């Protein structure tokens, strides 16, 4: 009896160890990638690298236009996708009844999330660049990225709204609140941290994408800062692609320096989202 217990205990410990090991393997590649990029890229980082125009066919100088371009594209994407995405989420979570129409909307959102990003790029080229005559521009690229980001924002926001207890709504209505007052004073403020997290994660993905901006707004080499939304722009992910594959005798350091800047850009958004979420959880009263 005692022996079989010891046996089971041993098996359990072995199982746990194996699972721990497997869990650790998922951390390993991330650490490798980040560590490697930091190791190779850090020497390239200098004030000049961050603040100067590229020179010598991008083989020297800095990557300022790509940094600014990515910033503009992210802001542009936010301008279109955040209000629209949150509004759609409010409609779906608070107002829409379960009808054929709302099911159609939900199916559309799910499918939108599954479309490969290069297809968004082609769609943006057809609709915004050519048909609407926006040209290859920040505007066209931002709109294309917005469409790609919308499903992420809508899904995350809807989930955050639904997580707010139904009882709050009932109480608010029973105290003489209209549905909109209830949403504005209780549901939305309570869901806001969750919505923000979703928004940032969506924008983070947009900031790192290459394919959707490839045909719609990204410039191969444009050593000046864009001065209108109708300008094309350099952007970090596309610049990384260009200097890694299209430019002969490219210094290794600049490639990894660019990758590091992009990584920091995206990871810091991720960290902000995590901080917002954990702070809100600590403060939450339900």
């Amino acid at each position, binding site marked *: 009896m005692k022996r079989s217990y010891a046996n089971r205990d041993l098996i359990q410990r072995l199982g746990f160890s194996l699972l721990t090991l497997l869990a650790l393997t998922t951390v390993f590649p991330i650490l490798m990638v980040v560590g490697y990029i930091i190791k190779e890229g850090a020497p390239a980082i200098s004030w000049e690298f961050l603040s100067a125009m590229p020179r010598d066919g991008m083989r020297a100088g800095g990557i300022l236009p790509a940094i600014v371009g990515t910033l503009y594209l992210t802001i542009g994407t936010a301008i279109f996708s955040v209000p629209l995405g949150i509004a759609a989420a409010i409609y779906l979570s608070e107002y829409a009844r379960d009808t054929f129409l709302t099911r159609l909307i939900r199916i559309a959102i799910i499918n939108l999330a599954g479309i490969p990003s290069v297809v968004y790029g082609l769609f943006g080229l057809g609709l915004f660049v050519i048909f609407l005559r926006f040209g290859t521009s920040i505007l066209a690229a931002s709109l294309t990225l917005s469409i790609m980001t919308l499903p992420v924002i809508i899904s995350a926001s809807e989930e955050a709204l639904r997580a707010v207890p139904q009882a709050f709504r009932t*109480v608010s*209505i*029973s105290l003489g609140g209209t549905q909109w007052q209830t949403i504005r004073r209780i549901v939305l403020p309570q869901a806001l941290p969750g919505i923000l997290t979703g928004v940032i994660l969506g924008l983070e993905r947009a900031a790192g994408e290459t394919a959707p901006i490839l045909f719609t707004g990204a410039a191969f080499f444009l050593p000046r800062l864009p001065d209108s939304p109708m300008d094309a722009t350099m952007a970090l992910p596309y610049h990384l692609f260009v200097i890694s594959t299209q430019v002969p005798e490219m210094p290794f350091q600049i490639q990894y320096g660019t990758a590091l800047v992009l990584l920091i850009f995206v990871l810091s958004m991720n960290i902000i989202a995590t901080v917002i979420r954990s702070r809100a959880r600590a403060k939450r009263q*339900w």
Partner: protein
Amino acid sequence: MVDKIVIENLSLTYAEGNESLRHINLKIAANAITVLFGPAGGGKSSLLRCINRLNDLTDIRLLQGKILIDGQNVLDPKTDVIALRRKVGMVFARPVVLPFSIRGNLTYGLELAGEKRKSRLDEAVERSLKLAALWEEVKDRLDDPAVALSGGQQQRLCLARVLANQPEIILLDEPTSGLDPISTGKVEAALQELKHQYTIVLVPHSVQQAARTADYAAFFLQGELVEFGPGRDLFTNPKDKRTEDYVEGRFG
């Protein structure tokens, strides 16, 4: 005795098909506690939710009859439901405090109606907390989060929150079902005070509570109003065999 609420031939069926109320006729007196009691599924909560039109949030297949408050049929589609719900407050079975401070919970209803004057809001906070017998316990920490209160305090806060709206009618749906006997006693004592100014409709969580609190009592069984009368008669000398069996604990 004034009939504050007159229910005429009220029938209700939910969209899922379960019939909830059948031809209910009931007169609810002002300045008294009327209890609606009976086993679960009898239609008591449904009736409460018709009175303040909270059932509007539920899918209903059929709603017939009238509910007259001060002579006005509140089931009329033209009824201003916002005004109705301010006039008819409701306390739920589980104390639901809103994610605000104690003060924020109490001023919420008034702020919805557009009241911004701090003096009015402060006055309402103190008055409603005193009415709900909670003032002494929380007066020094009105800005603390309301969730920090105990369950019994939270439920009295919910009662105070309704009172801050200055309603005329208070509906309570098993308000003490989750509370200990001491907290329950405090809520019941508060209701006994409040009935002098308000019309109170209470769904109690037990027959004993019904008997303790009722000025008038209505016994509901499977969507039907079996018997209605003054509390002392109904619990000591029920006319209907079913009421007698339930009051004496032969089923339930």
